């Protein structure tokens, strides 16, 4: 199949604005009469609020409004379970809870006013460990709820007792993971503008999911959705992170804007951002696996507990993805998994790139290597014996028969590109000196898009101007991942025009239908199909019009037309490729306009049917999957515990790479984020307080930490995806931690079952901070 615009590394259509500094991010916007909003946050993670006195703050010069929970029409919001408070009224549940908000003419005045708000707290004991929260007699984090459990997802397949009875080897291991901060470089920003162009309030800012924010603000204000308009701006990274925290911020800014009747801008400092924004869930996972002596998996039993922190946020869905992926891409006849989320008074947890998969993959792919060691097998061979192929049945009972299950191909390509076999053999020999090397791998299958989480559909609008230039709207949002370029390539491919004729519009909730959230690596697949559908609709209109105008003269039908190179042709002569120009795209647009033909269309795409039984965890949770394999090569300084990741080979089947350079960019970035997760990143919490609230304490990978990264793009077009394309954003970071842990084991003989693999854990086997998880 040959393409003109897709499957090519075209340059990003938003790069020019970004390299010149022209791109406007939320913090760069200003409006006439704009005020600055600031949040007063709680002093204690868990406390009763006895009294709030705002009098002095209100009197401070420049202060226009001070609001507390009393001023919030509906103080509870949330995408799944509505229990997150916009402002804490009676009780605070975590250290980032807001207690009051101020709007003032300058940022300084707003900050000064915060100090003048007098709050009387009664500090309360809290629950900071999900294991505590699980206990029958535990205090309840939310008194109105029957217990601390947010969610329990059971999965039952086969007969677990029978399975273990057939096992020659049974291993039981426990793994833990940490809180992780998204660390998007742009801190959160929202500007709420009241009464702009007929909406009650318009929200601008660093919004990852405009519809989620629109829904939250409308619900908090208790107004209809069409009264709240959200317009996205250039977004300085998100990785799942600018969702609920932005909804909360937008609701606060909207309240202040309506109270003062002036635009209100709220910008978080980095410390505020880390203190308030939700994190990746820490998990505690107990894995029990049974296998035959020959290395065939027969049973797996898993109990995973996620710390949801103070609010439900997206815990029910994050843990649900864990359920589907928990056993890894392996055929296991007997499976029992129980995945839980529990409330605590820790910082709340939500969506972050990977979404419940990096935790279980760290556990299960570490476990596979432990099992290989136990069986005296090569970890690669053990995997190859058990992986999914076409027609395999997953743990949730789904037969994988509607797409190419390319796991073996992906693994072997990664093995080849990394020279795995030779290196594995070499590093198995005894190594002299303090520095020891090892190589390790991890593999995964990953459900594309939302699956059984929620309705899965998206919209696009193509609007052709009378000069043939084109406006493209999508209900999914550019987060930095390259969505604008990918969607423009798809529109350009269908209509045969150049990308520079396409003007990509930011999401505006008043123009384009709710397309769900820009999450779950679903944009290319779901949104890409919506764009293609819109383009095909317009193309059909154009073809019909051209036939009417020129069909008789040149003797062709609408279906014979070829759209390319900004022109419209018909095939002529016998040879393939012999074509004759009928009209330029530009001229066509002018003629169509003058003839009164509508050259705009909505595209809509709804994902194929899926199914899920909450009681048994059985069904077809996703309509297609992607497959990945990452191989890490490390050098460990056994004198200091320092790990240097030398090389990461990342092979991913993306279905079809709409833009290969962009796919590589996703791989490089995801691998580095996975590396940070593996060896350095940890939000340090103590009794609900957060110790590292800026990049001096919370370390993310710099260019110095960068290994050689070998991206391997594998393409097996999916029947559903546009041009066969599937997903790449999230699979890239879910594999690194296990691959690195396995490599560290080969290098040192030390199996580390807690993330991150920091100096202490590598050197002495446990962390010196935070209770020293082993």
């Amino acid at each position, binding site marked *: 199949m040959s393409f003109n615009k897709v499957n090519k*590394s075209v*340059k*990003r259509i*938003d*790069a*020019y*604005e*970004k*390299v*010149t*500094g*022209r*791109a*406007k*991010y939320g*913090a*760069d916007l200003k409006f006439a009469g704009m005020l600055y909003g600031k949040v007063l946050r709680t002093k204690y993670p868990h406390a009763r609020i006895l009294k709030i006195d705002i009098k002095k703050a209100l009197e401070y010069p420049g202060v226009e409004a001070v609001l507390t929970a009393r001023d919030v029409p509906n103080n509870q919001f949330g995408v799944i379970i509505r229990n997150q408070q916009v402002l804490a009224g009676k009780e605070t549940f975590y250290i980032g809870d807001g207690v009051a908000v101020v709007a003032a003419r300058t940022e300084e005045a707003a900050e000064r006013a915060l100090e003048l708000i007098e709050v009387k707290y009664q500090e309360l004991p809290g629950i900071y460990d999900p294991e505590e929260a699980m206990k029958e007699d535990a205090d309840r984090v939310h008194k109105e709820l029957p217990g601390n459990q947010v969610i329990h997802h059971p999965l039952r397949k086969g007969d677990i007792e029978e399975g273990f009875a057939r096992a020659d080897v049974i291993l039981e291991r426990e793994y833990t993971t940490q809180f992780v901060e*998204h*660390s*998007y*470089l*742009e*801190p959160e920003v929202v500007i709420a503008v009241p009464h702009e162009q007929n909406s009650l309030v318009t929200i601008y800012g660093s919004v990852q999911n405009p519809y989620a924010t629109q829904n939250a603000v409308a619900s908090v204000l208790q107004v209809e959705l069409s009264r709240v308009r959200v317009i996205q701006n*250039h*977004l*300085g*990274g*998100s*990785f799942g992170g600018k969702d609920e925290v932005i909804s909360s911020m937008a609701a606060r800014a909207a309240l202040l804007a309506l109270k003062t009747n002036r635009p209100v801008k709220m910008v978080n*400092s*980095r410390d505020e951002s880390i203190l308030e924004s939700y994190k990746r869930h820490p998990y505690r996972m107990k894995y029990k696996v049974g296998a035959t002596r020959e290395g065939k998996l027969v049973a797996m039993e898993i109990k995973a507990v996620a710390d949801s922190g103070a609010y439900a946020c997206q815990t029910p869905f994050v843990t649900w993805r864990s359920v589907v992926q928990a056993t890894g891409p392996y055929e296991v006849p007997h499976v029992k998994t129980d995945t839980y989320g529990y409330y605590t008074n820790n910082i709340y947890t939500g969506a972050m790139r990977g979404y419940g998969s990096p935790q279980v993959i760290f556990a299960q792919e570490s476990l596979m290597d432990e099992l290989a060691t136990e069986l005296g097998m090569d970890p690669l061979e053990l995997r190859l014996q058990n992986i999914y192929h076409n027609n395999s049945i997953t743990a949730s009972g789904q037969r994988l028969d509607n797409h190419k299950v390319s796991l073996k191909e992906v693994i072997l390509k990664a093995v080849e590109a990394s020279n795995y076999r030779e290196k594995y053999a070499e590093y198995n020999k005894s190594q002299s000196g303090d520095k020891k090397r090892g190589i390790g791998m991890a593999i995964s299958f990953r459900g594309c898009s939302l699956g059984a989480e929620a309705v899965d559909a998206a919209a696009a609008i193509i609007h052709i101007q009378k000069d043939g230039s084109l406006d493209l709207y999508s209900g999914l949002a550019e*987060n*930095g*991942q*390259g969505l604008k370029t990918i969607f423009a390539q798809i529109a350009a491919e269908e209509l045969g025009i150049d990308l520079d004729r396409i003007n990509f519009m930011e999401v505006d909730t008043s123009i384009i239908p709710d397309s769900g959230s820009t999450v779950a690596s679903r944009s290319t697949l779901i949104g890409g199909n919506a764009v293609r559908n819109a383009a095909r609709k317009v193309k059909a209109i154009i073809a019909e019009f051209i036939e009417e105008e020129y069909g008789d003269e040149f003797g062709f039908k609408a279906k014979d037309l070829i759209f390319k190179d900004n022109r419209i042709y018909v095939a002529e002569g016998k040879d393939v490729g012999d074509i004759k120009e009928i009209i330029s795209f530009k001229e066509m647009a002018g003629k169509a306009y003058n003839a009164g033909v509508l050259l705009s269309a909505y595209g809509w795409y709804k994902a194929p049917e899926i199914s899920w039984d909450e009681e048994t965890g059985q069904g077809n949770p996703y309509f297609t999957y992607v497959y990945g394999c990452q191989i890490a090569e490390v050098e460990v300084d056994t004198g200091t515990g320092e790990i240097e990741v030398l090389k990461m080979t990342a092979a991913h089947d993306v279905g079809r790479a709409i833009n290969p*350079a*962009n796919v*590589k*960019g996703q*791989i*490089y*970035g*995801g*691998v*580095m*984020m996975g590396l940070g997760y593996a060896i350095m990143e940890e939000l340090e919490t103590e009794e609900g307080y957060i110790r590292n609230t*800026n*990049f*001096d304490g919370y370390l*993310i990978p*710099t*260019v*110095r930490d*960068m290994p050689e*990264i070998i991206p391997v793009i594998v393409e097996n077009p999916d029947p559903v995806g546009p041009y066969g394309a599937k997903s790449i954003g999230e699979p890239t970071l879910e594999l690194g931690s296990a691959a690195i842990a396995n490599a560290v084991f080969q290098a040192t003989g030390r199996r580390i079952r807690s993330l991150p693999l920091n100096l202490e854990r590598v050197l002495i086997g446990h962390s010196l901070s935070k209770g020293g998880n082993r």
Partner: protein
Amino acid sequence: MKKIKVNLTVNGKEFTLEVGPKERLLDTLRERLKLTGVKEGCGIGECGACTVILNGEAVNSCLVLTGQLDGSEVITVEGLEVEGRLDPLQQAFIDHHAVQCGFCTPGMLMSARALLDKNPHPNREEIKRAIEGNLCRCTGYQQIIEAIESVAGKGEEEGADYFEWDPD
């Protein structure tokens, strides 16, 4: 509070400003001069998003007080483009897919520009050293390095336009 009078050249233009003693260069550039290409990511000099070139050196503008800069010369990302022509680094960032969300991009460009101004042909290690203070969460740095290398690898002749450019 006492104001300090400062003469500052920014992107080739001269400004006379009266600033408070605590005003950060970052705020002067963003708020007074509307050069919002300069980004704030952390406020403590750890992320590099606010990097500008100050008297030939790449600095975090959040750590510099404007009141101390009398007679200084500052170049921001907005100053890289000359008469509609992109700096070779800007073009290279576009060509090599070195941009994702774009928030680190201005600072990254300024660190790279400061390096190339001093050392037109740096090796990969020198490039890494120059941008080690610039955090990027999207790209994994690979395509950024490739972009800088593509400019660094070129002969003096091709880069000459910029190197001879005198903002005064």
